[in-house]
């Protein structure tokens, strides 16, 4: 179409630039403020520059068990990531064929994304409470003696996170396989490959960059999840839950130091994932003919 940039371009470019500033500006402010001097407060001006608040945070200076929460969130995030990749991939492969209940599964996946998180969270909590009651009152003695609850980070909590990450994982898989050229598989089969060999040596290498993307969604969405975690984590809170609890009580820059630390983890994971995706795509461009380019 028209070759020179019109007024609309500059107006929209300005909107976009302001939006990016709006997205990143406030975050940048708390990064700066987390390096407040020891006498500094929650707002500007900066009273010196120091690592005081980070030290206080990581030596457990006054606030909750941050190290424990950090490890719990990291562990849970990694498990959610692996499960999200594996389960989304399997389901993505399934949806390329017809199977009984494919329509229902599709709608349930979308519903899981749309139903308010508090409702899902409450439901899982109720399910586990009823399960606990049943086991305590009707379970065999070896089970019910000393039994407290089945709720925990890796039971109800894990399930709650998966209801949030799997829909994203599956939607990404749909996008991948919509563009996937099935003739690569046919060629592999014609050359005598078993289904497993085809998957392992043909399909997976082509879709690997996107699978890293699915893993990125799995980890980061779990790492920052609160709403679904709120009722389902049992007695041990995850890091974002601790952070949210702090927003109402803390009046010192500890909270910015914590915010900066968790965001640093997010950014590190995003950077690693994007780097790996870039490397894989470069490798494909160099060695892999035009696989997946269609």
């Amino acid at each position, binding site marked *: *179409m028209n070759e020179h940039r019109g007024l609309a*371009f500059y107006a*929209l*470019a300005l909107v976009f630039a302001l*939006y*990016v500033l*709006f997205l*990143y500006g*406030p*975050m940048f*402010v708390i990064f700066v403020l987390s390096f407040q001097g020891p006498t500094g407060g*929650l*707002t*500007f001006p900066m009273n010196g520059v120091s690592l005081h608040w980070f030290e206080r945070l990581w030596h457990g200076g006054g606030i909750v068990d941050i190290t424990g929460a950090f490890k719990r969130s990291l562990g849970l995030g990694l498990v959610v990531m692996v499960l999200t990749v594996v389960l989304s991939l*399997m*389901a993505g*492969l*399934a*949806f390329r064929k017809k199977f*009984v*209940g*494919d329509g229902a599964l599709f709608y349930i*996946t979308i519903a899981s994304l749309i*139903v*308010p998180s*508090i*409702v*899902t969270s*409450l*439901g*899982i909590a109720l*399910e586990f409470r*009823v399960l606990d009651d049943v086991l305590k009152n009707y379970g065999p003695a070896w089970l019910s003696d000393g039994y407290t609850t089945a709720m925990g980070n890796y039971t109800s909590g894990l*399930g709650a996170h998966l*209801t949030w990450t*799997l829909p994203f994982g599956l939607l990404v898989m749909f996008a991948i396989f919509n563009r996937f050229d*099935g*003739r*690569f*598989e*046919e060629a592999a*089969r014609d050359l*005598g490959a078993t*289904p497993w060999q085809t998957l392992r040596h043909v399909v997976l290498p082509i879709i690997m960059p996107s699978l890293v993307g699915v893993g990125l969604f799995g980890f*980061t*969405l779990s790492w*920052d999840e*609160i709403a679904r975690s709120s009722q389902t984590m049992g007695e041990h809170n995850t890091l974002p839950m601790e952070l*949210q609890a702090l*927003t*109402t009580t803390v009046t010192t820059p500890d*909270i910015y130091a914590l*915010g900066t630390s*968790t*965001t640093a983890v*997010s*950014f590190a994971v995003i950077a690693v994932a*994007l780097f790996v995706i870039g490397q894989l795509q470069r490798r494909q461009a160099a060695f892999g*003919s035009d696989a997946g380019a*269609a």
Partner: protein
Amino acid sequence: MTVSVVPSKPGTPASSAPATRFASRAALDRFGLPGWVQAMPIGVVFALFFVLPLIFVVIVSFWDYNDYQMLPTFTARSYVESFEGCLTKFPDCTILKTYGSTLKFCAIVWALTLVLGFSIAYFLAFHIRSTTMQMVLFLVCTIPFWTSNVIRMISWIPLLGRNGLVNQALVSTHIVNQPLEWLLYSPFSVSLAFVHLFTFFMVAPIFNSMMRIDRRLMEAAYDAGANGFQMLTNVVIPLCKPGIAIGSIFVVTIVMGDFITFDVMGGEQIASAGKLVETRLQALQFPPAAANAVILLGATMLIIAILNRIVDIRKEL
């Protein structure tokens, strides 16, 4: 083993050979594990942690309760209590007022994210010419989505607080005499945070719709004499309807069910539909919490049904 008789060059785009694709699709059915086996794990997760929990919510909403436990007997007590005063003092009861206020937030946030999200998607899709640049800029919009919402909320505190940057600037330039109080812990800051956090949910589906628009349609409109505005209203917006509808569903359902943004940015002073559930939960009153959850779910489904009447989303996916 099946032998394919269709010769195909590996470089040919799949879309140009629908017959070949159909043949391979049919062949795939007889190839590898059956679909239901592959879909089983995800199905089990959704059954255990989504479908069954929703059933529990509905069942428990009809249970009775006392100060320290739920009592599994059928009663509509939780619903009756939730709508307390709605008949006698209509429409001046807690639940209706709360839903009214939440819907107002939905409308404001929806309008703002739609206009902003559409403009950004339009800029990315039609004004950025190189695909690489498009992807880079889209990624710039996506990265905050992969970071913590709570941190993105509290990052407004040093800006909007009583002694925050905005007030410091306004006071020092004598635009106002004393710091503005309504910037933080107010309906303003709640709406601002929603726009900040969730405009991405509009950008992504609308951008996706725009990228699918056949550019030749726009060239045809241009050749037929359409000006920029006519192009927008007659070509782009109608073809973006599915994206707009999907983005709207995301944004509206998020605001309807949210309790964290209302808490953190509203200073725990602003009621919302999601918080009605959460307040009951904090008091460990599970049946009333469940009843409020069912009401919330009903309201959300009603909104989706209305949006679905405007655009048939199923057809567009």
